[in-house]
């Protein structure tokens, strides 16, 4: 085992972006410290002969368990051997053994993971089974068994341990390869006639090399820990000094000389910690590299119930109380990585009356969904309401101090008076609970119905939204129903407490065309039956024409124009609206808008 194999246990191609990650690690004080510790420890071990002339096995019974002195800088052990020399020489076998375990694990895990992930099939099934088997084996126990049968060789133990650790590389590589294999550029490479071997080495290995290096650092640390543990148990090869054996001797003599226990414990801890921290630092560098451009957290911001500085209800302008919902001069901001903020909603004002359907139209990124989430008080945690008012039925919802919707004012309204129909039906139902539970629970919680009454009501609701067999859907889990059904369930949930305002965020976008028409029809029926005000977020002018009374057109976080739907659709005053309209209708036969048999219904 030479030093070279230790310094770079992984021989992978070194493309350009790896240097960037290395540079990041070098800038991270923790990472660089760990790296420095390893370099110092490894070079000191292999230069042991130059550092101290003392033979690590030379006993001197005249000075047993002596403290530090000129001749023995770290003292002597129970046989009078020099601790420093034993520590340094012990490092050699430690690092070499760790390198062996890592290389074996790499050899066992990487090629098999590449093949299993790339080709799948029986090889994948077989290797995955072996992986599961290896992972259910407690390493220490297996190594004990091997020691019992094959003798106390550290090399056999570490080679075997490498095999046991192979699965960690196998799983890592296999998962990455499977995800890369589906990428378009890999398809392109295949189509352009590159051989599998070239695709694997050039494209696939490129993706997994950084995680492999990280894992190798972590595994080297684990191997050192396990090796020291076995030697500590007294199962090592006693012919050469090792840290684990020194730990064993130190532990047995701990009452006589605690210091003697300290040195090997310190050496083991420092080195395993350095490997672990280095792995961690590499991972951070890698994740930074990938994630920095999109650091938007999406958890919800919580505002404590007791808060000072709420805008008193009295300050709401008199005109704002006439409408069901008034949004005035609303601006929403997100912090950027460089400390500035990005406005995603800028000075938006509109209102919704009782029983009225208002559409917000715009391309993706225009700020329409952010506006809707502001009204619901469900903006992501990082977002803040920089300016403006949201007044619902005369109640000011925005808390000035916190830059968010006041939780104490919003909580009583949510679900019962303001409801929400999301865009993507399948991801908006909790997969772990039945449809029935998710429908009836808010009824119990918010309306105070008994469980039986809530179930009865939920079944009625399912029938109302046009689900053919309410009983079966009630008992089903979300993954057992179709997307169209799921959207009906979500609509049923939204209207279950008969809200005054329904906020629908692209409720038909994720559905099949035929189902879209049915869902729109359902929304229309429910809206007129329950006399709800509806805020309909959409990019589709067909939907607007079909359902809305008034429309707000948004672009680049601002309102472009707003007004009566007939006026906007027939005589848009802004170029942008015209473009948007044209793109919606492009390639389709122009239809007579606003007639009862418009496209949405007959489709």
């Amino acid at each position, binding site marked *: 085992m030479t030093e070279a194999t230790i310094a770079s246990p992984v021989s992978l191609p070194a493309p350009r972006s790896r240097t960037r990650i290395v540079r990041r690690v070098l800038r991270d004080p923790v990472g660089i410290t760990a790296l420095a510790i390893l370099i110092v420890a490894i070079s000191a071990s292999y230069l042991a002969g130059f550092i101290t002339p003392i033979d690590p096995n030379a006993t001197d019974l005249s000075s047993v368990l002596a403290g530090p002195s000129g001749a023995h800088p770290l003292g002597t052990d129970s046989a009078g051997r020099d601790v420093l020399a034993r520590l340094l020489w012990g490092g050699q076998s430690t690092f070499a053994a760790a390198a062996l375990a890592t290389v074996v694990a790499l050899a066992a895990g990487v090629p098999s993971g590449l093949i299993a992930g790339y080709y799948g099939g029986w090889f994948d099934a077989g290797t995955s089974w072996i992986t599961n088997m290896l992972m259910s084996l407690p390493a220490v126990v297996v190594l004990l*068994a091997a020691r019992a049968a094959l003798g106390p060789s550290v090399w056999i133990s570490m080679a075997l341990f490498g095999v046991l650790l192979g699965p960690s590389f196998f799983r890592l590589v296999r998962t990455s390869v499977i995800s890369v294999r589906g990428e378009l550029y890999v398809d392109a490479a295949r189509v352009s006639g590159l051989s599998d071997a070239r695709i694997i080495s050039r494209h696939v290995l490129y993706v997994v090399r950084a995680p492999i290096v990280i894992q190798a650092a*972590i595994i080297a640390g684990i191997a050192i820990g396990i090796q020291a543990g076995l030697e500590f*148990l007294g199962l090592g090869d006693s012919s050469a000094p090792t840290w684990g054996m020194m730990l064993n001797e130190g*532990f047995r003599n*701990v009452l006589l000389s605690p210091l003697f226990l300290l040195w090997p414990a310190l050496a083991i801890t420092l080195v395993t910690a350095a490997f672990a921290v280095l792995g961690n630092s590499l991972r951070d560098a890698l994740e930074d590299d990938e994630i920095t451009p999109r650091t938007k957290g999406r958890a919800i911001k919580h505002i404590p119930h007791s808060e000072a500085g709420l805008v008193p209800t009295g300050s709401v302008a008199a005109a704002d109380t006439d409408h069901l919902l008034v949004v005035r001069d609303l601006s929403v901001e997100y912090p950027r990585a460089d400390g500035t903020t990005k406005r995603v909603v800028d000075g938006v004002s509109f209102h919704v009356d009782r029983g009225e359907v208002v559409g917000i139209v715009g391309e993706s990124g225009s700020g329409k969904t952010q506006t809707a989430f502001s009204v619901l008080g469900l903006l992501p945690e990082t977002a803040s309401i920089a300016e403006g008012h949201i007044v619902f039925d005369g109640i000011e919802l925005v808390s000035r101090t916190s830059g968010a919707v006041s939780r104490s004012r919003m909580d009583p309204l949510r679900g019962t008076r303001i409801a929400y129909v999301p865009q993507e039906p399948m991801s908006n139902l909790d997969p*772990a609970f039945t449809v029935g539970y998710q429908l009836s*629970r808010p009824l119990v919680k918010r309306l105070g119905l008994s469980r039986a009454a809530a179930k009865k009501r939920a079944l009625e609701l399912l029938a109302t939204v046009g689900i053919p067999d309410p009983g079966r859907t009630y008992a089903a889990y979300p993954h057992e129903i179709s997307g169209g059904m799921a959207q009906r369930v979500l609509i049923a*949930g939204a209207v279950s407490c008969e809200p005054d305002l329904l906020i629908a965020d692209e409720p038909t976008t994720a559905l099949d065309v035929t189902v879209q028409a049915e869902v729109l029809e359902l929304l229309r029926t429910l809206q007129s039956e329950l006399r709800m005000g509806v805020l309909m977020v959409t990019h589709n002018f067909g939907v607007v024409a079909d359902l809305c009374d008034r429309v707000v057109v948004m672009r680049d976080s601002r309102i472009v124009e707003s007004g009566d739907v007939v006026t906007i659709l027939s005589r848009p005053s802004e170029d942008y609206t015209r473009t948007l309209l044209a793109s919606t209708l492009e390639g389709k036969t122009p239809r007579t808008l606003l007639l009862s048999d418009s496209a949405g219904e007959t489709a």
Partner: protein
Amino acid sequence: MLVFLGRRILSGAILLVVISALTFTLIFSTGGNIARTLLGDYATDGQVALKAQELGLDRPLVEQLVNWFTHAVTGDFGRSWFTSEPVTQAIMGRLPVTLSIVFLVMTISVVLSVTLGLLAATKRGLVDRATQGLAIFGAAVPGFIVAIVLVTTLALQARIFPATGFVPFGQDPAAWALSLFLPVAALVVGTVAASAQQIRSSIIDVLRRDYVRTLRSRGLGEREILLKHVLRSASPPGLTVLALQFVGLLGGTVIVEQVFSLPGIGFLAVQSTTRGDLPVVLGVVVFTVIMVILINLAIDVLVGWLNPKARIS
């Protein structure tokens, strides 16, 4: 669910047979050398041959394997070469110690890591940084070093806890708890470090899902959403990590039992390894694998219960 359970039990049984066979082959493959090792360098070749014959080591490996299996299925794992005690009896006698440790470590780890993970994911700030720091510490410092530090400081220096020995629960529950406190603490650190971090990140992941927003829009309380919905979806990855931790834990107990001189299965394993008592070593491997399979089965069932989708796949 029954089909799911049946399939898991079957695959566990196959796993057990394969691992037993492999371990048997690994251990007994050296054939004649075993008797030589047992008797030492000074024994004559005749004595070695006689010993090998006595232990059945002169037979073909396959025959030995089949012989071992036919007895093993009836619960007979042979006798110790040194004490003649039946292997099953030797293991059963030491099982309470190891099970006490493992049970305590698992229970405490689940409670601690779920609490820490939840707090770190929702409150962020100090708890979050502490959890991440603990995760690095757990990966950085080997468990037996933690055990050694605990025993030297709290038991040998401060004398708060006993350094060695085990008191059965039935004899004196308080002394039992005291005798296990340090070994359990030493193992809990690593387990919690790994799983709290996992639970934290899966909670953060689940909190970002669309359905959490929808549940909030329905006006359900934050506590209910967190404890019922988020925790439930976030648990399976945490449980998977815990299952892996359990495997590591069985190795950890071997070392910890040695440090604290606890007469458990790990102690037995080290003892029989040093003197080459192969039937006991093999028995210990088989028993540990049975424990792993049982825990994995329990966790599979739990994941299936938590996540209805997992029941079909």
